[in-house]
């Protein structure tokens, strides 16, 4: 107990610092500081872009949604009272906007089909699992194909399962944060994750012939 007390003290101090930093950032954003918005963009534009990409599977739509999300953040920051973290709030807006955009996208899809392969053509940041070891061209091709299959499998999930899986597995958010973002109970998040993972596993197993 005596050993854990200082450790807990540090963690609490860190949490307080993070909270006060975020409160300061929110205050700056409310005041209309251009620097604060630049900082917000620098921190959140890439995660939000990736989230919307996984939700919409289309770079152009994700770009549109990204802009809508940050305009909404800009307009809505006066109404943000810190009930959740800023990150959770922004993600909630992003998921909501992506869902709204997806409805329109589904309507358009009936008239103009598009290829999921186009997602792979965009410049990518090295992923967590790519490792530092040098890979042969065959391994790189295999990895690329596998990633495309995973994306296709993810795209085949319905919206509730997909958003839960993306937020947990790709964005690495906690159950509590996901529950806040999706506006559901933690139990629902758990069951959606269970079902989403199961669907993904089945889909990938059938495609990979396992």
């Amino acid at each position, binding site marked *: 107990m005596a050993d854990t007390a200082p450790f807990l003290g540090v963690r609490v101090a860190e949490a307080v610092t993070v909270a006060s930093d975020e409160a300061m950032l929110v205050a700056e954003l409310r005041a209309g500081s251009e620097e604060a918005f630049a900082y917000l963009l620098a921190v959140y534009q*890439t995660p939000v872009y990736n989230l919307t990409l996984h939700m919409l599977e289309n770079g152009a739509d994700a770009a549109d949604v990204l*802009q809508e999300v940050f305009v909404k953040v800009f307009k809505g920051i006066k109404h943000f009272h810190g009930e959740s973290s800023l990150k959770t709030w922004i993600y909630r807006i992003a998921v909501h906007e992506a869902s709204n955009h997806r409805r329109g996208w589904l309507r358009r899809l009936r008239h103009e089909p598009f290829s999921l392969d186009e997602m792979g053509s965009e410049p*990518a940041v090295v992923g*967590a699992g790519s490792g530092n070891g040098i890979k042969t061209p065959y391994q790189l091709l295999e990895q690329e194909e596998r990633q495309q299959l995973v994306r296709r499998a993810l795209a085949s999930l319905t919206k509730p399962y997909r958003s839960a899986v993306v937020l947990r597995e790709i964005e690495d958010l906690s159950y509590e944060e996901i529950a806040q973002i999706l506006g559901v109970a933690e139990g629902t998040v758990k069951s959606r994750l269970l079902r989403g993972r199961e669907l993904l*596993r089945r889909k*990938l*197993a059938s495609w990979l012939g396992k």
Partner: protein
Amino acid sequence: MTMFESCIEIRRHFSDYLEGRCEPVTVRSIRYHLGYCEACRAEWECCQSVREDLRSLPRQQVPPELALRLRVKLSQQLHRNLLSRLLIRLENAIQPRLLPGTAGVLTAIICFGLIMGWQTVPVTNAPDVPLRFWTPPRLLELAPVNFNTDDQSVVVVTQIDAGGRVRGYTVLSGQDSPELMQRLDRVIYFSLFEPATMFGKPTEGRLVLSLRRITVRG
């Protein structure tokens, strides 16, 4: 230790097991089951593999043109009201001219100061010819003649020519007895006057004198 009855039962816990959210008892049961059940072990490995695949998906970087578009859009939103838009325009218009403008004003002040410093005329006490437009005639010295008007002053207007000589005079007020006029003649005609000047040149002028008593001793 609670043991799972079937593979279906254990597989329901895979998601929680993956997250590390299972009770220690459940964890032990799952481990025990996976130790002998090959089918469940294969499925568990598949679950882990899916998770790794998802986590290894590369993060897409926001295209630079999109990032720029986003910044411009937010900046437009930020300066939507008329006043701040005007201020921005004013700032944009002034800023390029601010440095050269300030430098110009400072240079002008310095030049002005230097020029004014060089042109300062040293002040001297030397008498000089007054260069004003017009100066009136002046009495330099009264004639040494006794004069008394019995406590009633005499006011006279004297006409002084360009040489400082008295051309004549007129009594404006006071006594005008022949005796007083005789004494006044002597006082005025023997006094010294400085003539009036026009642009520094002597000219004719009039001088008003008020006399009451002149006492000469010695």
